[in-house]
């Protein structure tokens, strides 16, 4: 263990323009090691580190509110001009009795088991914690039963949205800003077809933190040698495998076989799921033919409109790696409901 005691820094609220979203984390060790970030660096990070050292010295949590526009660089207009609130909590990693250590170990196990949870923390009393599961179970307390009830409801909503956020709760007798930190399994990329574009796609997806599953009917193609980073390699009848997989609002599906024998039957299955993104590697003409065939087979147009074909953003991709980048950029944009256009034009 490199560090025994660390300060866990959590971005709990943002106002205006901020480079990171609520839930971003940074760990500052008592020996100076750093992991993660709640901003994009510079003077703000320096202040966070300084405050973390104070938290480690006192071993008491601390809230910090910082304006990103008040740095010296403001004069040059070089800052993001937002305000962020940060919660810093001390954790003793060497102590099995440490509550936060135990809490996050439990969360890790829940997420590893495919479950989604939200941890509610009242920012004025961060020692209180309430864990909310997506099925409505709760564990812990916020200090008032009415706050617990509200937190249970809001926690489930935020789990659905996969969004961490601070929300003001009011029980009549007690009110509190409560930070809901949502933990969910990583987004999953399911690729049908184990060709050369898929190898680049899986490699890049792994770097983005996605769980990756590759499906093909050909054992010679779906191999560990070709896909060393894949979490799962499934060989069999692709449409049958497709019916047995789990699709959530964090699942990206890419049909990369470039072959109607996989595309048509797999689309029939995945179009009935809540997958966040469904893209098909194809020319426009071929894509229209496949969608036309499915329409004739009774698949409704609303479902067919979900299929991104030709797949990817228009970045002039030629190589397999570039195509992979184009596909994943589009998948992320669709998932986050962004247009995928240059930020310069916003």
């Amino acid at each position, binding site marked *: 263990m490199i560090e025994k005691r660390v300060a866990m820094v959590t971005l709990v609220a943002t106002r205006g323009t901020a480079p990171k979203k609520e839930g971003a984390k940074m760990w500052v060790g008592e020996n100076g090691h750093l992991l993660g970030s709640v901003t994009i660096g510079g003077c703000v990070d320096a202040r966070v580190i300084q405050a973390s050292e104070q938290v480690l010295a006192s071993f008491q949590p601390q809230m910090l509110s910082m304006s990103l526009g008040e740095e010296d660089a403001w004069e040059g207009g070089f800052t993001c001009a937002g305000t962020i609130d940060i919660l810093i909590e001390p954790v003793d990693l060497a102590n099995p009795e440490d509550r936060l250590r135990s809490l996050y170990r439990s969360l890790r196990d829940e997420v590893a088991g495919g479950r989604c949870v939200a941890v509610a923390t009242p920012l004025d009393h961060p020692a209180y914690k309430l864990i909310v599961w997506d099925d409505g179970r709760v564990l812990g307390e916020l200090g008032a039963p009415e706050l617990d009830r509200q937190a249970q409801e809001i926690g489930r909503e935020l789990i659905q949205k996969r969004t961490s956020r601070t929300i003001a709760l009011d029980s009549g007798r007690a009110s509190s800003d409560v930070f809901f930190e949502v933990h969910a399994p990583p987004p999953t990329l399911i690729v049908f077809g184990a060709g050369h574009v898929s190898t680049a796609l899986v490699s890049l997806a792994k770097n983005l933190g996605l769980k990756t599953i590759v499906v*093909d*009917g*050909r*054992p*010679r*193609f779906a191999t560990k040698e070709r896909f060393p980073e894949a979490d799962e390699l499934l060989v*069999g*009848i*692709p*449409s*049958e495998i497709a019916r047995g997989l789990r699709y959530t609002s964090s699942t990206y599906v890419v049909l990369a*076989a470039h*072959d*109607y*024998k*996989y595309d048509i*039957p*797999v689309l029939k299955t995945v179009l009935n799921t809540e997958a966040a993104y469904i893209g098909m590697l194809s020319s426009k003409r071929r894509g229209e033919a496949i969608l036309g065939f499915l329409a004739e*087979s009774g698949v409704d147009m609303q479902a067919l409109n979900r299929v991104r074909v030709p797949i990817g953003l228009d970045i002039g991709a030629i190589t397999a790696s570039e195509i992979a980048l184009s596909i994943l950029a589009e998948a992320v944009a669709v998932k986050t409901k962004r247009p995928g256009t240059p930020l310069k034009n916003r």
Partner: protein
Amino acid sequence: MPNLYSDVLLDHFRNPRNFGSLPAPDIRYETFNPLCGDRIRIEIELSGDAIRAARFQGDGCAISLAAASMLTEMIVGSDITAVEIISREELLSSLKCDIIPARVQCALLPLEALQAGVTLYVTECRR
């Protein structure tokens, strides 16, 4: 779909007969083309030596799926010994169009699965 396929073939591709699986098949065999990825599984339910029901599952091209569909129609009611002697030509001619040499393998994939499954079943029964 290009015109080089017969209406019969296209009909079986678009409306495959006996597509699915059986609850407790006596014979179940899956085979695939390692290069193109066509993969077909044939299931058969027997009553004595007679084929009572046949089903197929798989992802394949129009030719292989149509061939599988036709094949399952052909064999229901016949004896499994008759299955072993179904010829390539018999299946190919039932598709009612000229299959170019490069695609003959697609048409024969279901027959390969069927005959391999039957051979395995007969061998194990006789053991």
